[in-house]
């Protein structure tokens, strides 16, 4: 990792934040916010490795925000900080489930964050392999249900009703991602692309307001990529903000409203896809593969 000056890091960070709208909108408090997520000055270290170095970013409600950057830039680490899997040493993350209710994220457990309304998929697919596709999604749809073990054992009407509701919601979501015909197949028997979509359905089952997708197009074929693009648009159209990590530039450029570029754990650029594409810092970060940025190939 080449050493970088502190001043330049700070400069980039400030410009990234400045590009993201009114400066006072993100302050947690009673004021309504048009933001869904704000990260301030996140720093995450593993021993000597600094995976995030003062990262700040903001996402507006309904926006499709893409995070790009070379391998090891810290994209997944950022997601892990947003979902409680990692705890950053410094900085804060605020999430607005509704415009009036900010919640601090750092320090909460992953399941509590999911309950607040942030759901995610994993870069290396993590389904429940020995459960059916339907059961995978059901586990998501059931996390907001309230019936306990006693009502389940006694088969109380309330429990049965909720269970049926969870199943039908799961079927709706399987339909949305185009897997309703494979509902009763084991998750592990699905193709790679299907597994990626099943993970999205499972995440949507938890009723999120913000969906984090970690390289959803990795390992999928061109037809699946087109379907994925449409799916992401539909999800965002349904009022769920989408935060997307992706190496496929064509997908990022066509689907994202805003792009944040990470390199060595820092935000080096921030703006619309067109702005970012022209940014010299980005071209430098992708040095040697700069054609990939505008030719729409896979930048890895």
């Amino acid at each position: 990792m080449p050493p970088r000056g502190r001043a330049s890091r700070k400069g980039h960070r400030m410009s990234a934040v400045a590009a993201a709208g009114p400066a006072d909108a993100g302050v947690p408090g009673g004021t309504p916010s048009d933001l869904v997520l704000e990260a301030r000055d996140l720093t995450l270290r593993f021993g000597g490795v600094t995976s995030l170095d003062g990262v700040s970013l903001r996402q507006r409600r309904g926006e499709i925000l893409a995070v790009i950057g070379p391998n090891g830039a810290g994209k997944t680490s950022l997601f892990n900080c947003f979902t409680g899997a990692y705890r950053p040493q410094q900085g804060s993350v605020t999430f607005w489930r509704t415009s009036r209710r900010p919640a601090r994220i750092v320090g909460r457990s992953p399941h509590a964050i999911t309950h607040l309304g942030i759901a995610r998929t994993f870069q290396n697919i993590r389904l429940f392999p020995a459960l059916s596709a339907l059961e995978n999604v059901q586990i998501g749809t059931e996390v907001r249900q309230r019936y306990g073990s006693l009502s389940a054992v006694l088969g109380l009407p309330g429990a049965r009703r909720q269970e049926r509701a969870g199943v039908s919601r799961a079927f709706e979501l399987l339909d949305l991602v185009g897997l309703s015909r494979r509902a009763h197949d084991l998750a592990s028997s699905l193709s790679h692309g299907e597994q990626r979509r099943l993970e999205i359905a499972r995440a949507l089952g938890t009723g999120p307001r913000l969906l984090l997708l970690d390289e959803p197009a990795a390992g999928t074929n061109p037809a699946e990529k087109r379907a994925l693009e449409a799916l992401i648009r539909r999800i965002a159209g349904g009022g769920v903000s989408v935060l997307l990590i992706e190496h496929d530039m064509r997908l990022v450029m066509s689907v994202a409203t805003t792009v944040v570029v990470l390199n060595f754990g820092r935000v080096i650029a921030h703006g619309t896809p067109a702005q970012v594409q022209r940014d010299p810092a980005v071209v430098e970060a992708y040095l040697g593969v700069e054609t990939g940025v505008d030719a729409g190939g896979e930048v890895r």
Partner: protein
Amino acid sequence: MLTPARLRQLWVCLALGVLAAVVTGPGGDSAHPFRALRRSVVDPRIGIFIGLAVGLWVLLIAVARLRPLLAEVTAAARARRPVAAALGGPHATTGLNAVLLAAAIVAPLLVSTAAQQSMVNDIGIYALLALGLNVVVGYAGLLDLGYIAFFAIGAYVTAYFSSSSAMPWHAPFVINPFFVFPIALLIAALAGVILGAPTLRLRGDYLAIVTLGFGEIIQLLANNSDEVTNGSRGVFGVPHLSVDLPGIHYRWGIDPLPYYYLLLGIVVVVMIAFGRLERSRIGRAWAAIREDEIAAEATGVPTLRMKLLAFAIGASVSGFAGVLLATKQFFNPQSFSLQSSFLVVAIVIFGGMGSRLGAVTGAVVLQGLAFYLRDKVPPTDRYIYFGAVIVVMMIFRPQGLVPSRRRRREIELAGTTAGASDQLGAAPIGRTIT
């Protein structure tokens, strides 16, 4: 057709046979350490073991040959009657359950009183214990080696509340053991939560060690506090169960049969209850934790709370069984030894983790074997046979006698993919999440 795999299987069988011959042969002495070994290998008795080993090998081949045939027959039957889904359909399952229940009802009438006694004390109570531990090990994927401690808690709570003479330490009032059931259940569940809350954060092997320690502590406490629990002399004279309701008066007594039917009823009710639990959101959450704890958390499953729930449910069943043990008149700390703890774990794994029928079948087979061996081999050797049976089972049928569908799939997947479901809930320790 002798493929290398088949030959290897033969060698394993033969090795197991020789091992069994040696461990069950005459005992050695320090002056001639190899004499016993020589005698048990040279003795014509070895022929029996070699015969058994070859028999096992032939059986394995036969099963492997027959399996595709059986699958074909089943498929054909299904195709002929697609609606009724002949074999394996819900009707077949109900039918099978009815047959098993009928067998369980008739069985004690055909055996001696000593066998009946064993069917209550060894099979019935251990089936109940295994059903409870199955929730912890099979459903939630947590290895609890101190499970027997809750059994002890249930038994001592019963002695405390229902008799003023059984232990030096007793309640100021005496209540009918029947009303102790809910109390013991709650106290055991509470103990489960108290033990679980700090320890369930630990992963796999660590949890096993901590629970092991807990089991030992409880047994030692019971054994050493003479002024409270009567220590190693044990507890004698807890009254038998009795119902005294207007119109219904019944006393369970020395006769094992009424106890047997009571236990059978309890086991059936617990099986039905846990079946419903397994198919509910709770059971699915447990399955999710077992398969991928990190993904489960990310999907909103409160993993720690769900594990605690499994722990508490398992503990309460164990405490419940403890009440039954106490009302059988006599128990001492020996009933809660490490060996008993391992026995319950062995029953669950032998029967098939995550399978209720497996837990009960495991208790019947293993404890039945113990009863059968009682007069045939010296008591010190009994566990050798136990071990042999379990080792053979784990080599050739790791999913257990009557595996649950989910668990079988997990084990199959673990063989082919990077699934980590075969390690009893242990997740990687350094967790890099991508």
